[in-house]
């Protein structure tokens, strides 16, 4: 059976399922060692992005702005950009500054490459790397912004390098807890790696010591420079567009073999990563992972009948949507609606393969909004949702539980600690999913049975 993506026919977007493009870029630069981010546009953009990140990560997330007003919007923002760079360097002393464009500066037609080059020349800057990234939100969402910034970092730093034994690991926007779990798995196989980006410590800082404006941690730039000499790249980016793919750039320019894998969320996806790591390391399955896999299988058996009652809506960024749909499918809870605010050229095809054996095909919505997701959920009898906090309305209006994953999670604490990666993370997610179904069931089954049988009190 073929999975068909439903085209959006209406023009108005009613309750947004996506974030804006520079937001993705911000997160990437927060995962680079000693980096600061500057958003070239009006003041509000940077503040909104700070707010969204702060609410999710519960960490200070400083983002500078060139703070353009109407004068610069007409005559150009060069002076403001230069002043902003001056001030960022003075106060934050970064080694890297990511400069992201906004809808405003893209519409103005600002030539960011030139503006940055002039600045470096005028100020004689040699010790700060200033990396511009084009992120107009009328051409993409936070998903494209994340990939674009990551690819730009590779393009900026990677020079032909001697071959070495490290593995490149390129991730989409996942939680710091997920990053740490993936690092642990690589270490279990004895593999050395460069993780790009790595905000596992910068956006989830342990308390203690003196507060630092730019927190320690993040990918080191000399490691990015050496990614060109790596033995292989593992990129968790099945849905990453080719033109934004950092892994593809490393393969095409420097001949680094690319293993483009699904996120290691779910048994089968994690098995694929393990298989790849076995080959790359020459080591067999570490015993502790074997045990973790066993616990997951045991949990899947214990919960399978409960999970079969699940009719999930899965929504969010394409890479996450694909991974979580996989967990649902392998546990017998086939999604009824799969949706993304992002338009992906790969997602529909990937889902068709994933759902080849499914009894009923889900409705797949791309470039969509929550009004359409809600309609589809009602039509297909959805009873649970998986995604970011935007879906809170599905709980409010339809009473369905929401398993919060992805970004942003602004109405619950601990977004940075949500773990879904590896066998352990998969089981943690699965337990949350199953227990949400059980909670609904135990809360309602007495009343439901009575209603069905027309039993009235005292009758």
């Amino acid at each position: 059976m073929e999975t068909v993506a439903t085209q959006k026919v209406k023009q108005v977007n009613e309750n947004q399922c996506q974030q804006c493009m520079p937001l993705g870029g911000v997160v990437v630069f927060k995962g680079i060692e000693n980096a600061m981010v500057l958003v070239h546009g009006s003041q509000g953009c940077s503040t909104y992005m700070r707010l969204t990140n702060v609410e999710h990560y519960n960490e200070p997330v400083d983002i500078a702005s060139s703070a353009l007003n109407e004068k610069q919007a007409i005559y150009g923002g060069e002076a403001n950009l230069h002043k902003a760079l001056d001030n960022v360097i003075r106060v934050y002393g970064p080694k890297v500054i990511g400069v992201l464009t906004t809808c405003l500066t893209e519409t103005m037609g600002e030539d960011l490459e030139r503006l940055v080059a002039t600045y470096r020349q005028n100020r004689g800057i040699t010790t700060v790397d200033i990396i511009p990234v084009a992120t107009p939100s009328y051409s993409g969402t936070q998903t494209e912004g994340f990939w674009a910034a990551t690819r730009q970092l590779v393009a900026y730093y990677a020079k032909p390098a001697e071959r070495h034994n490290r593995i490149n690991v390129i991730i989409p926007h996942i939680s710091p807890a997920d990053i740490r779990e993936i690092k642990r798995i690589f270490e279990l196989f004895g593999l050395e790696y460069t993780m790009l980006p790595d905000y596992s410590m910068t956006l989830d800082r342990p308390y203690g010591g003196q507060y630092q404006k730019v927190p320690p941690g993040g990918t080191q730039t000399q490691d990015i420079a050496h990614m060109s000499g790596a033995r292989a790249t593992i990129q968790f980016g099945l849905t990453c567009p080719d033109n934004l793919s950092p892994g593809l750039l490393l393969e095409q320019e420097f001949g680094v073999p690319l293993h483009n894998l699904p996120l290691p969320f779910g048994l089968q996806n994690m098995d694929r990563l393990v298989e790849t790591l076995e080959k790359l390391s020459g080591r067999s399955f570490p015993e502790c992972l074997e045990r973790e896999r066993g616990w997951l299988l045991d949990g899947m058996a214990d919960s399978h009948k409960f999970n079969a009652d699940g009719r999930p809506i899965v929504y969010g960024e394409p890479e996450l949507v694909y991974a979580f749909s996989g967990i649902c499918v392998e546990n017998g809870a086939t999604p009824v609606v799969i949706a993304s605010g992002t338009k992906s050229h790969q997602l529909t095809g990937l889902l068709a393969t994933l759902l080849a054996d499914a009894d009923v095909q889900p409705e797949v919505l791309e470039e969509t909004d929550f009004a359409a997701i809600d309609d589809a959920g009602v039509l297909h009898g959805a009873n649970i949702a998986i995604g970011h906090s935007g879906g809170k309305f599905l709980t409010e209006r339809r009473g369905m539980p929401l398993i919060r994953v992805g970004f942003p999670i602004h109405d619950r604490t601990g977004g940075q600690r949500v773990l879904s990666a590896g066998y352990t993370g998969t089981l943690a997610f699965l337990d949350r999913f199953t227990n949400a179904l059980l909670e609904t069931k135990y809360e309602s089954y007495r009343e439901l049975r009575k209603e069905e049988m027309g039993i009235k009190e005292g009758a």
Partner: protein
Amino acid sequence: MDTSSVTADGSACISERQNSILTTGKSKSSIHCADDSLAGSVSQRACVFCGARVVLNPVTDAAHLVHGPIGCATYTWDIRGSLSSGSEMYRNSFSTDMKERDVVFGGEKKLATCIDEIVSKYHPPAIFVYSTCVSGMIGDDIIAVCKAASERHATDVIPVESSGFLSGNKVVGYRAAAIALMQLIKPREGETVEKTRKLNFLGEYNLGGEKWVVERYLREIGIEINVAFTGDSTVAALKQAPGACLNLVQCTGSMHWVAMSLEQEYGTPYQDVNFFGSANTAESLRKIAQFYGEPEIIRRTEALIDREQARIQPVLQKYRKKLAGKRAAIYVGGAFKAVAIIRQLKELGMEIVLTGTQTGKKEEYDNLSTLLDPGTIIIDDANPAELEKFLLEKNVDVMAGGVKERVLAYKLGIGFVDHNHDRKDGLAGFDGAVRFAREVYVTTCSPVWGQLKAAGRRA
């Protein structure tokens, strides 16, 4: 050509910002304020669009359509904790979701279609159409589109000219919203609204049901609220605004201009009120009673104040015992809120050592200074580096502010009171004063700070 070198000097303060920071009793000159944010200073401010959006958002049965690329709508979806007694329409976020094609060829047609779609799906009594950076930049004529749509659908389609890059931050957005409100309430030609003895309550957004609290007090003393601007308001109720005999103004930043306009056009006098803190609440009720001047109203007012004060003062005294002598910092959006908080913290026996606002005006800062002890730091348009510096220098125990300040305070081991527009708990009136005191107490005196200090020593 500027060839001056730029280096990190490690100091938190950018020299150009020196005049925006003063110490009461020491600085002779006035504070530099009400200016554009300095590029690269990491201002805590949002934008013009945000200002307009937060003022109008609580109009419950209106549809709010953002004409721009997706981010502006995403970031302001259901942004306030404003409650509604009826329609939930305002909690939806509509966007024209401008794409590259719209930026190049103009977005007017798409805007018109989006309005049509909203009207045919929901038939709202009014639609507010907000311009953003991009729609402003490309020169879409939203006034003409709204006018045509108004005629086509015989409903109010009101343009809000809130392009984000306009100079002057949120305050300019407040004005854009005010103009939109004045347009909405203007009676049709030949029609007039009869004067009543009810009053309007301006600058009240019903956060956590605060409008309802004041409404209950007023009802008890024999006065009815005509409509609030804009908490829990409807389009029909707003259109009755000219019928009030008095306008109360609470949040002056957003509503002072509306009050003046209402006086000019409909001859309605206005007076400032403030329902945050028990002393402010009592004072405001007395002022209102004086305006009506009827002995029965005055008698009931005094009875209400006596009863409530007798009820809450013992509770406040308990908190005062715990909090006396603690050192507090305040950083909020507008001066009205700063004044309200200063007074309440002082009533709790606390010392204010740092205060500031995003959008205060010179007169407001002058007034603020008179409430503060010598040696207090006042900052206009502060940034995280400055806040960090002074929070540490001044040895602050608790801070009041918004979400972005909260995470910084916690990182520094400082308590925090949420006084932002998405808070869920009402802080107005006598019970609100108790709730405020309780929040100050639980955060200032939380046992976690002791644990954190211990952890700091271990490190």
